[in-house]
C-alpha cells in the first residue's frame, strides 16, 4: 500500500502519519510512506484541508486526524 500524507509538518500531520502506520501494522499490511509538505504539491493534488491521507491514489481522509481504529476500518 502506498500512503501519501499531505501536510505542512504540524503536529496533526505527524499524528496522522503515526496513526496510519499503526493501523497498517495492526492489519499486517506492507506499506511505504511518502510525505508531501510543499504547499504547491498539496494544492495540485486537489487537497484543501490538511492533514490529508491518500492510500494507493485515493484520498481517504482530509482535514482531520482519524484514530487508528477508523483508519483500520478504511484499510481492512
Amino acid at each position, binding site marked *: 500500500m502506498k500512503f501519501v500524507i*499531505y*501536510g*505542512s509538518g*504540524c503536529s*496533526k*500531520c505527524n499524528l496522522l502519519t503515526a496513526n496510519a502506520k499503526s493501523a497498517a501494522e495492526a492489519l499486517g499490511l506492507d506499506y511505504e510512506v511518502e510525505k508531501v509538505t510543499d*504547499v*504547491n504539491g*498539496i*494544492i*495540485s493534488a*486537489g*487537497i*484543501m*484541508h*490538511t492533514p490529508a491521507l491518500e492510500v494507493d491514489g485515493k484520498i481517504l481522509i482530509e*482535514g482531520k486526524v482519524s484514530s487508528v481504529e477508523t483508519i483500520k476500518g478504511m484499510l481492512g
Partner: protein
Amino acid sequence: MNRLVTLYKENPHQGNLLLALIGSFLVIYFLPVDSPRLGNAWLESIKLTNWYAREHVILCLLPAFVIAGAMAVYISQGSVMRYLGPQAPKPVALGVASVSGALLAVCSCTVLPLFGGIYKRGAGLGAAIAFLYSGPAINVMAVVVTAKVLGAELGIARALGAIVFALVIGAIMHLIFRREEAERSATSDRGFTADEQEKSLSATVALFSLMVGILVFANWAPANSATWMVIYEWKWLITSGLGLLLVVLLVGYWQWSIPRLVALVAVVVLSAILVPGVPQLPFALGVLGLMLLALMSTRDQEWATQSWDFAKQIMPLLLAGVFIAGLLLGRPGHQGLIPDEWVNAAVGDNSFVSTLVASVLGAFMYFSTLTEVPIVEGLLGAGMGKGPALALLLAGPALSLPNMLVIRTIIGGKKTAIYCVLVVVMATFTGFIYGNFF
C-alpha cells in the same frame, strides 16, 4: 583561527549552543536589576497577566473557544466552498470569500492549502486574496476578544473594516491581474462541491444565536446610557435564561441525555448559591460541563475536540503575548520597559504619519492569533491614538514577514508585494479616517 572556523562548521549544533549560552549569560549579567523601570516592568507583566486571567479568560475566551469549535464542526464547509469554486460567478465568490474567512479557517496550516486551492483551482485570485485576508482578520475569537478588551467600538470597526478590506483588496487584485485570470482553464473542482446538510438550518442558527447571546450578556459592561445600565443590572439573569434555553435546544434537537444535563444545571445553580458574588464560577462550570457532555456524546465529540484544539493552540501563545505586552508597555495607565514618550512620539496622535507607522509595523510584525489584542491595549494605554490602533489591528494579524514568504511561493513575488502594499495603504487610510472622524 581557521582551525576554529572548521571546528564550528563541523559541529554547528554544539557551536550554536555555546554561543547561545554565552549570549544569555551576558544579557543576564548586564541586566540593570536595580533600575526601577526594569523592576516595575516585571511587576507590570505579572499584573497584566493576572488581570487577563481574572477579567477575560473565563467569561470571554472560554465561550469563544466553544463557539469557534462549534463553527468548525456544525457549519458545513461544503455549503460555503460551493461559492468559491471555478464555476462560481466572480462577484459572488468575492463576497462569500470576504466573510467566509471566519468560517473556513480552522488551523493556520489549513489556510494556505485553502488559499492556494481557491487561487489555482477555484474562483481565482480575487476570491483567494479576499479569503486570505479575511481569515485572520474576522476570526470570530479575535473579534470577540477585541470587543471585550478594547471596547465594542474598536471591535465593530475591526470587523467591518476587515470585511470591507477583503472585498476591496480582492477586487483590486483581480482587476490588476484580470488578463491573467481570464486565461485560466478549469481543472478538477474537487473540494468545491457541497456536502449533504446534517443539521437543520434553524437548529444551527438557534445554537449559535444562543451561544453568542450568552457571550454578549455575560460580558455586558457598565456604560453611560440608562438602558445600558438596566441591562447591566439584569445581565446574569438574562445569561442564565439563555443558558436554560440552550439546554432545552440541546435536548430537543441534539438529543442529549436529559439526566446528564439536569445534573449539570444542578451543579451550576448549586455553585451560584454556595459561592455568591463570583459569577465566573458557575459560568466556568457550565462551559466546562457543556464540553464534557459533548465529549461523552459520540455524535458531538468533535465539537469538544475542536474547541480543545483551539484552546491548546491559542492559550500558551496568548499568555506569552500578554506577558510580553505587560513587560514592554505595562498595564493601561502604567509604564513598562518602553517609556510612554516614545510611543507618543511615534504613534501618539491620529496624524497620517502615526497611522502609517502603525500599519507598516503591523504588517511586518508577527502576531499569533489574539496576541495583537494585549499589544494594542498596551499601546493604547501608553498613548497611541485610536486611528493607529485600528490600522495596527487591520494590518497586523493578516500579514507578517514569515507569512509573506510563504504566500510568495504560491502566488509569486509581484502579487505578494502588491497585496502587502494594498493592505498597508488601506489600513493607513481607514485608520486615519477612524481616528479623525469618529
